[in-house]
């Protein structure tokens, strides 16, 4: 970069930093962060985004900036690790690189890293554990049977290669009981308990799994059932931990729903789980047609996406003379909004997505 260009950028940075201090607004922080990103100083952009979010916690553009800056920081670190691995490879560096690639969602690179890792260190179960973790992320997100099968296969391999690999066994036990293979999951968790007798959390997990109904050992069939129904057979331990936590979680959902209902243009908002629904805004009662439309749209979109083999339907927006109806779905949880034409749908959908994502661990929700 020429000296004059550098001086210009430096001057612009000084101006934007001063503006961020004197007239703080989301756009000021975004402009400043953007300059740092252009200069490839992602760590500084991350600091700017965090400072901005401390002042404007709901600003969508700042959240996007933070996500972008974090990705940049991770990419830089991944490039450093890649260079180090070329000079002096070791399993620890491979593990760190693979974990970064999981975070970045770079599936192709992750597979290449794990392949290289397992070729160089064929006795190291780590590559299979990391691959299993990546597949599990995909499985829990999409509830896709194919991802689940791969996750179980990788974790199983890791456990077979190293019988004392606790992380892989724990993940394997967890996914197995969540899909309904309670008996096999219990076996894995019992082995884990023998390896670490003092783990109180594991003891609690075993007690939780002991209360669940076994749906058989046919993992492929159980995964297919999960994909078909769009939800897991059993809740996690966190979800059933205590009524108090469920109450807190329900209160949080109520607050989030109230916040969505207050957004400009939003007329009605609902959170639906099973036959129960929380509602905010201009809704008369449980027979309000909006609630039925939200349920119908969620179900029909889910079927459409599954049959067309494009994964799980996560968001739907229906437009008409009534304005927009936005629906966000995750598993059996649905959040929906009816809003007028001209509403910022991106903001509404982001809020709905946060509600469904945040409510994954509350099973007792309802009114």
């Amino acid at each position, binding site marked *: 970069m020429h000296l004059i260009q550098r001086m210009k950028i430096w001057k612009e940075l000084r101006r934007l930093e001063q503006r961020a201090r004197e007239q703080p607004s989301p756009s000021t922080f975004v402009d400043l962060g953007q300059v740092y990103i252009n200069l490839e100083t992602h760590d500084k952009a991350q600091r700017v985004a965090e400072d901005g979010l401390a002042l404007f916690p709901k600003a969508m553009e700042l959240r996007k900036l933070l996500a972008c800056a974090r990705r940049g920081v991770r990419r830089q670190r991944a490039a450093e690790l890649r260079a180090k691995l070329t000079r002096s490879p070791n399993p620890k560096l491979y593990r760190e690189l693979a974990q970064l690639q999981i975070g970045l969602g770079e599936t192709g690179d992750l597979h290449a890293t794990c392949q290289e890792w397992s070729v160089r260190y064929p006795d190291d179960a780590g590559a299979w554990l990391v691959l299993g973790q990546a597949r599990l992320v995909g499985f829990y997100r999409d509830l896709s049977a194919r991802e689940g099968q791969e996750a179980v296969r990788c974790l199983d391999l890791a456990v077979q290669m190293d019988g004392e690999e606790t992380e892989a066994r724990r993940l394997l036990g967890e996914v197995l009981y969540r899909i309904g293979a309670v008996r096999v999951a219990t076996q894995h968790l019992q082995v884990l308990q023998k390896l670490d007798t003092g783990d109180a959390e594991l003891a609690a997990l075993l007690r939780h799994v002991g209360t669940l109904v076994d749906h058989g050992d046919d993992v492929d069939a159980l995964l297919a059932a999960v994909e078909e129904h769009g939800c897991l057979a059993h809740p996690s331990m966190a979800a059933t931990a205590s009524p108090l936590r469920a109450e807190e979680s329900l209160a949080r959902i109520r607050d989030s729903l109230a916040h969505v209902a207050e957004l400009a243009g939003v007329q009605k908002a609902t959170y639906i789980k099973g036959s129960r629904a929380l509602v905010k805004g201009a809704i008369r009662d449980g027979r309000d047609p909006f609630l039925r439309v939200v349920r119908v749209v969620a179900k*029909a979109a889910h*079927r459409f996406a599954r049959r067309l083999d*494009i994964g799980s*339907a996560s968001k739907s*927006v229906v*437009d008409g003379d009534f304005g927009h109806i936005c629906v966000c779905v995750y598993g059996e949880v649905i959040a929906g909004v009816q809003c007028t034409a001209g509403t910022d749908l991106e903001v509404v959908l982001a809020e709905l997505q946060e509600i469904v994502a945040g409510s994954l661990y509350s099973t007792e929700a309802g009114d």
Partner: protein
Amino acid sequence: MGKINDTLEELRRLAGVKGAAVVMVDGLVAAESLDERYRSEVVAGLTSYLLMTTNRSLREGGLGECAQFVLHATHGRVMFLALREAFLVVVFDQFADLPAVSVDVQEAAQRIRQLTQMA
């Protein structure tokens, strides 16, 4: 019909578009230009199911009819636009920037509406 096919071919050239089709409300394919992984009769049948179901629930609630439906899924996105007695279906990959291509899709739908009116 040639001009409708041309319009669908033009849509195919937009970034992220995997295919486009004009589907009658009863699930018959009027015209299509789809990626080979999508079978036209499957797309048509599913579109008919999705929009008939949605429209029925909207009508029952006194909300009228759906003019546009956008579906985001894990591995793809689909846009449906109401035509006369038919729908324009545009299938995208999951990375498609829908706001960026929305105007082109709306224009294509408008062109197809005019062409069907002339026919």
